[in-house]
């Protein structure tokens, strides 16, 4: 069973890291460079889970989550937020925006996979 994941991050390194962490575990990974791009990519796919960064140009992570939740078919798509801070306010804000969970960068590939499995099966 391969889960389809959309990873949105403006850092190429992060996108590469996510891909590197998930591909060997059999995930099917799509990437986007920022929130706006993420919404565009989302049109063509039906991801089982979404991973998004917060600080991004054009549309940040909060805006992106908002936009995703605004789409009927993605009201319950699990969304994990990538954050460098483990700050409780950030988690609260992400959750208010509709995020399912969070991963603290730099992430451990295992944790990422665990977290994805926890939210998306």
């Amino acid at each position, binding site marked *: 069973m391969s889960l389809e994941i959309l990873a949105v991050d403006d*850092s190429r390194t992060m996108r590469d890291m996510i891909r590197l962490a998930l591909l060997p575990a059999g995930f099917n990974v799509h990437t986007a460079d920022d929130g706006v791009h993420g919404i565009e990519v989302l049109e063509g796919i039906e991801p089982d889970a979404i991973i998004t960064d917060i600080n991004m140009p054009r549309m940040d992570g909060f805006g992106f989550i908002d936009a995703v939740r605004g789409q009927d078919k993605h009201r*319950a798509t699990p969304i994990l937020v990538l954050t460098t801070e483990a700050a409780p306010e950030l988690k609260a804000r992400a959750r208010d925006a509709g995020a399912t969970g969070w991963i603290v960068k730099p992430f451990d590939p295992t*944790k990422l996979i665990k977290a994805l499995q926890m939210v998306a099966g």
Partner: protein
Amino acid sequence: MSNTNDPMAEIRASFFIECEELLEALQDGLQALDDGDDDPETINIVFRAVHSIKGGAGAFGLEALVRFAHRFETVLDEVRAGRMSPDTEARKVFFQCADHLSDLVRISRDDGELPTEETAALLDSLNGLLGEAGIEEEADDAEEEEIDFQPAVLSLDLDLGGDDEEGSIPDLPPLDALPTAAPSGFTIRFKPDNDLFETGNEPFHMLRALDELGTCTVTCHLDDLPDLDALAAETSYLSWTIDIETDVEEAEIAAAFEFVDGLCTLDIKKKTADDVSSAPSQESPADEEPPVQEDEPVVKADAPAEPSPVPPTETPVADAPQESKAEPAPAAPMKAAPAPAKQAAPAAAKSVVRVDLDRIERLVNLVGELVINQAMLSQSLERSGLSPHSDAMNGLEEFQRLTRDIQDSVMMIRAQPVKSLFQRMSRIVREASAAVGKDVRLHTDGESTEVDKTVIERLADPLTHMIRNAVDHGLEDSEARIAAGKPEQGRVNLTAAHRSGRVVIEVSDDGGGINRPKVLQIAIDKGLVSPDATLSDTEIDNLLFLPGFSTASVVSDLSGRGVGMDVVRTSIQALGGRISITSTPGEGTTFSISLPLTLAVLDGMVVQVAEETLVLPLNVVIETLTLTNQDVEMVRPGAHVVRVRSGFVPLFDLGKELGYRDPVEDYDGSVVLLIAHEDGSRAALIIDSIQDQRQVVIKGLDDSFYRAPGIAAATILGDGQIALILDTSDIITNAIGSSGACAPQVTTGLTA
């Protein structure tokens, strides 16, 4: 890390490339801030750049980089949040930090020695900006970061939040714990709130996560479930009780519910001995994880290398089959089954391909061969006497056009904006002005001008030197500036522009201009010029390019490095470029570098001299003339000028200058090329005939072997023969040097 097949090494390499881009964005943003840009997005860009560097650095365990970036980011966040205003002092610190960040990036990349003192000093500056609160916060952060930087170690630590690191370490069962020890476990009561589903969380997955931690017995409570017609779509009615038989710590159990903390009613109780004995303890056959009790921590650490087992849906969680029917959340468990993914068509945002430079080089070379081949084919078809209107000749014309288009496109691949180069220079200005205690501001223009990548790389050193010179020698100190009625802050301009098929880069200052009497005196003292010489201003200015010339009477830290303008000139010439100076006393000095757009092709004029075919850069040829004897005047034996309209232009015989033949004696009917250089110098060159104008592929001459004066490079003609590409500037300066036509005083040096 040298293993290219190691994906981590590849990502690491790509991270450093990305860092360069981020550092560029950082510089841009800071520059915009410094220029008074108060668009909130500007500080956001600056913040993001630092933030992304930190994020990536964390992934590679580059601790020094993360630590510094974090502090920097914290301060920038204050600015972003409007709690701090980026005043002059702050902006100065930001620039220093950006420079230092860029150092740290490079040092981290090359595993170099960390400049700990400098880092510490800048951290202090940053803390200074933050004030007291910041320092306290730092202590916390340091601790937290410390823990967060454990990226490469793949542990099966299930803690997801990073909040309970302390708790997660004792998870490892004590070594003396007997595997047969009475299993312990927890009883968990879990009731989701309605909000839980709005965040896309799914109780089913949590239950399954628990199942991986031990043996679970799940009871689903349907008590609250209303009649079907009373079901509200998004209301949570179910709750669960889970009995888990495991010896993991409570923190790990809690971790499974981390994301829903606050979105549910959760009660985790450690089972007492009685509970354990009464708990059902059958092993779940579907449980792919070995019983935790037998699990050595070492084994766990290896686990992530393989895909984590994804249990089939029929795990003990299926004990609550009602869930799939009653579960009101839109995400039905079946969702987890692989809904055949639509072929993804990711929107093509600015899509960028990174290509190994070697591949481009290869392509450039191949296209070069193609151009030569096409020229050969043209030549042989022409010789075969085909009608110019024949299909073959028409087709050839098209072929020629396509070849040229391909060539242009290939060259475009190598072209890059000079921006990155200019940014490096802005740093040089900051450092140089600080070193000599002058207040200097760099103004740049034309940063988006594109130039061949190799040219950009090879310009860095000469430009650095010129910028340092401008700051050190070009600009006066503040007292002198004020005395001269100029603003105290000195100005250095760095501009790039495309001008008639070449790139012109100028470095200018608004300083005192070249001190010509002093320059001349130094040249005389050094024996470069005879004491009784009379030199024009331009000639004096050009003395700066003599090898070993340095105007600084006191060798300063900055410029006194034994590298003179002669080296700058040699490097520029090696790129097929020219450099010239103009200077106005009291107003400043401008160095102008003119470069070919690419190092690979040249628009050339193909001429014949003494049976040899030669190529001149087309852009230096301004006119062709056929002489009569009346046009030529002798200044003195061996030195002639040709009258062009009302002016006199020195006349040189190319055949003689190249040593190919004796000088022409009868000028009547001689073909002459009128040459002009960027520095305004002109000359007329006698040739035998003009053959063609065409683009030629530049082939380097290996001059470790023998460097021929006056020759810039070579090319291969349509007939396979090699033609030399002339460096007309070099030829003329050599000719002047040997004939003494114009500047008899200067016998060496200008040929540098």
